[in-house]
């Protein structure tokens, strides 16, 4: 039945990711590791159509966007990984007509049963985060499983029992753990860094959290209000640099 587990129940495990937007460098390693693991794991295969042609399309469960934010000296480039947030009020689960889309009582992971999914795509319409991708080859919906076939896999070394994206991240921008446990490492990270929900106004109550950008040293964000960039420097103050700076000034505007 497509009912959701009671998220307020004491001790309810809520496995999820915490993504540090300050640390992510947009290398796409998480996206590639996700595709690589999941095309041979739980959701195998993640098909591609026309992969080398003019209009390729394929299923990826994790996408890394890049945005510009702020103005002037406070302007930043932010890499923004986007995958299923394993929402507590997951409308993708309740709209499913067959019960193929479900949220696990035991750990809160949202999954699709590829054997009962009819491929109506309604769950993807219900998801505000664009997290689900239809597999045109398999005729069923695909989504992040939090690498359910890794995190409980006793055949893997202990350090490998985490989602492929987390394991692959070279900068430690992705953290995996139980966000239902207030004392877990991920929960502490969220409270220390002010982790936030995406689109809380829609009421889906995502489990995954995003950590905001840190304040940059030396450049107070007030410069952003003025919209001014710091004047370009004259170099490191060495004799040679000072000479060229003088030549530069002497030659005029």
């Amino acid at each position, binding site marked *: *039945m497509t009912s959701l587990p009671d998220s307020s129940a004491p001790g309810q495990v809520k496995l999820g990711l915490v993504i540090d937007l300050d640390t992510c460098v947009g290398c796409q390693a998480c996206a590639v590791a996700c595709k690589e693991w999941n095309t041979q794991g739980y959701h195998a295969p993640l098909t591609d159509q026309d992969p080398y042609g003019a209009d390729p399309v394929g299923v990826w469960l994790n996408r890394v966007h890049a945005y510009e934010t702020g103005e002037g000296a406070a302007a930043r480039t*932010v890499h923004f990984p986007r995958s299923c947030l394993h929402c507590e009020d997951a409308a993708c689960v309740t709209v*499913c*007509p067959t019960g193929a889309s479900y949220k696990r009582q035991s750990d809160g992971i949202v999954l699709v049963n590829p054997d*009962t999914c009819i491929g109506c795509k309604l769950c993807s319409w*219900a998801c505000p985060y664009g997290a689900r991708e239809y597999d045109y080859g398999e005729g069923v919906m695909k989504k992040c499983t939090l690498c359910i076939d890794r995190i409980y896999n006793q055949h893997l070394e202990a350090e490998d029992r985490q989602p492929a994206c987390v394991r692959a991240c070279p900068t430690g921008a992705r953290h995996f753990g139980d966000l239902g446990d207030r004392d877990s490492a991920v929960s502490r990270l969220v409270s220390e860094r002010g982790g936030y929900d995406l689109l809380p106004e829609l009421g889906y109550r995502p489990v995954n959290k995003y950590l905001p*950008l840190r304040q940059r040293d030396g450049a107070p964000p007030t410069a952003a209000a003025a919209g001014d960039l710091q004047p370009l420097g004259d170099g490191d103050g060495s004799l040679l640099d000072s000479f060229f700076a003088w030549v530069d000034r002497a030659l005029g505007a």
Partner: protein
Amino acid sequence: MHPAYSVIIFSTLSGAGYGLLALGALAGAAHGPASSFAFGALVMAIGLGLITAGLLASTFHLGHPERAWRAVSQWRSSWLSREGVTALATYVPALVFGWLWLDPQSSPIAIRIAGLALAAMCALTVICTAMIYASLATIRQWRHPIVVPVYLVMALATGAAILLAIAVPFGRGAVVLGVIAIMALLAAMALKLWYWRAIDREPRVLSIAMATGLSEPVRQWEPAHTARNFVMREMGYRVGRRHARRLRRLVLALFGLAGLLALPALLAGSGVAASLAAAGSAAAALTGALIERWLFFAEAEHVSSLYYGAVGA
């Protein structure tokens, strides 16, 4: 939103079928057995035919049509499942009503009970169809409270135009049905105008800054991938949106034409010219409904498009 062609055909055809059956059922509830076997049989056959064709069409867009039977299982939470259940359940009162209505010996009380049950189930099914869209928080243009009334009135208007086209050649009740058809078509035009004005005036309250939690201004710097993925194909679909104004006028013009073509039936009651006009009225109403349904999808803006550079949602 990408309009699944089979879904557009389904909701238009089955909507008209439910409207037609509901009106036929109400006629039976009011007047007892069908005035002639041929008339009653034609109404039931066309009504059930439209519904069945629509339901079959709706399975064509599925990745796994052979699993469609599973869709009736989750009626406790899913409007799509409820639609499946009510659509299938409607066949029971439809067949009972058809059986009673076509038999001149049937008791008017039995016909009335079956007719009212059938009309109620038709309305319920159309409401479930509309709620599939109206229950999605992700699409502002679908979440609107006028969506359910629009679906009901569109079903009634197209069903009434078809019933008129069936009735006029038989010279039966053309005046009453002509009035009902014209009123329903006018109501559909008024509701759609209201709906379009409402979605045009409603501000887009969600932005990419809100979707990412980053501080304003936020601009897409580099797309996440170089080719279009499923989300962009499905949620970002906008073919026809550019022509929305013209298509809206076309829908209104077709509905207006359908109303005008219902007039000869109203005035003459029967005859070849009135019959042809009534058939034209039904065709115009159905074509208008198809275009209206296309626009309903093409004008729908999904929240997830924000991540791909949409200005607002």
